[in-house]
C-alpha cells in the first residue's frame, strides 16, 4: 500500500462519478454521481493524512467537512427535486434547462 495506490483509487472513483454526473438524465442518478465523486475525495484525504502528515489533524478535519458536504448535498438535492417535481412534474435534467445559455 502506497500513497499513489490510494490516490489512483480516489481518481478512479472520481472519474466514475464524473461519468455518472455528466451522462445521467435523472436528477436523482446525477446526485449519485456527485456522491461517488465525494467518495473519492474521502479516500484521498484519508490517504494524505496517513502518508503525508499523520501527526497533524488537518486531514481528519477535511474528512469531517466532506462528510458534512455529502449530507448537505443529499438534503438540498432531494428538496430541489421535490420542489421542481411538485411545480412542473419534472424529474429529468433535460426538462429543467431553463437556465441553459
Amino acid at each position, binding site marked *: 500500500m502506497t500513497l499513489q495506490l490510494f490516490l489512483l483509487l480516489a481518481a478512479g472513483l472520481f472519474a466514475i462519478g464524473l461519468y455518472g454526473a455528466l451522462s445521467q438524465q*435523472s436528477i436523482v442518478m446525477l446526485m449519485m454521481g456527485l456522491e461517488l465523486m465525494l467518495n473519492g475525495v474521502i479516500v484521498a484525504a484519508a490517504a494524505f493524512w496517513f502518508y503525508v502528515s499523520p501527526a497533524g489533524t488537518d486531514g481528519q478535519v477535511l474528512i469531517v467537512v466532506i462528510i*458534512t458536504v455529502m449530507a448537505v448535498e443529499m438534503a438540498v438535492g432531494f428538496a430541489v427535486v421535490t*420542489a421542481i*417535481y411538485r411545480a412542473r412534474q419534472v424529474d429529468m435534467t433535460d426538462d429543467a434547462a431553463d437556465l441553459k445559455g
Partner: protein
Amino acid sequence: MDVVLFWVLAAAALVFGYLVFRLDSMAQVTFALLASFLAVAALVLLLGLGYLGVVTALMMVIEMVIMAVFMIMFMMNPAGLMPMTMVHNKVGSAAIAIGTFVVLAAGILLVDWPTREGEPPPDPTFALGEALMGGQMLTMMTLGVGLFATIVATVVLSTDRGRYGDER
C-alpha cells in the same frame, strides 16, 4: 494481510461504483452505491481512522436507505423488470471521465510526493476532537451554521407552497 484487504476493498469500491451506472433497478443501484461507500469506509478504518470510518459507514447506510425511498418515488422502473437506459451524451461523458482519470493518474504518478513526517497520534479520534474544539473551532462552527441553513432551505423548498409560490 493489510495489502490483500486493500486490494479487495479497492476493487469492491470501484466495481460497485461502476455498477451504480450499469444496473437496471433503482433499488439495486442504491445498494451498489452503499456497497461502494462501505468499502471506502473500511479503507478509512484500514488507515487507522477508527472514528471517521465508523461515522462514514453509519451515515452512508442511513443516507442510502433514505435515497432508496426517493429513488422508488421518482423512478418509473423501481424494480428493474425492464432494461433501462437513461443517459444523454454517453460517449462525450465517457471521454471526459476517462480523460480526467488519465490526467489525475499522470499527476499522481509523476509528482514527487513529500515524505511522511511524524507518526499518527496514539488516539487519532482524541486528536480530532481536540482539534475541532480547539484550533479548528471555526471550521466546526461554520459546518454547524451550514447544516442549520440546510435545514431551513430544505423545509422552504419542500413545503407545499414551494419555491414557485402558490399559483399553479
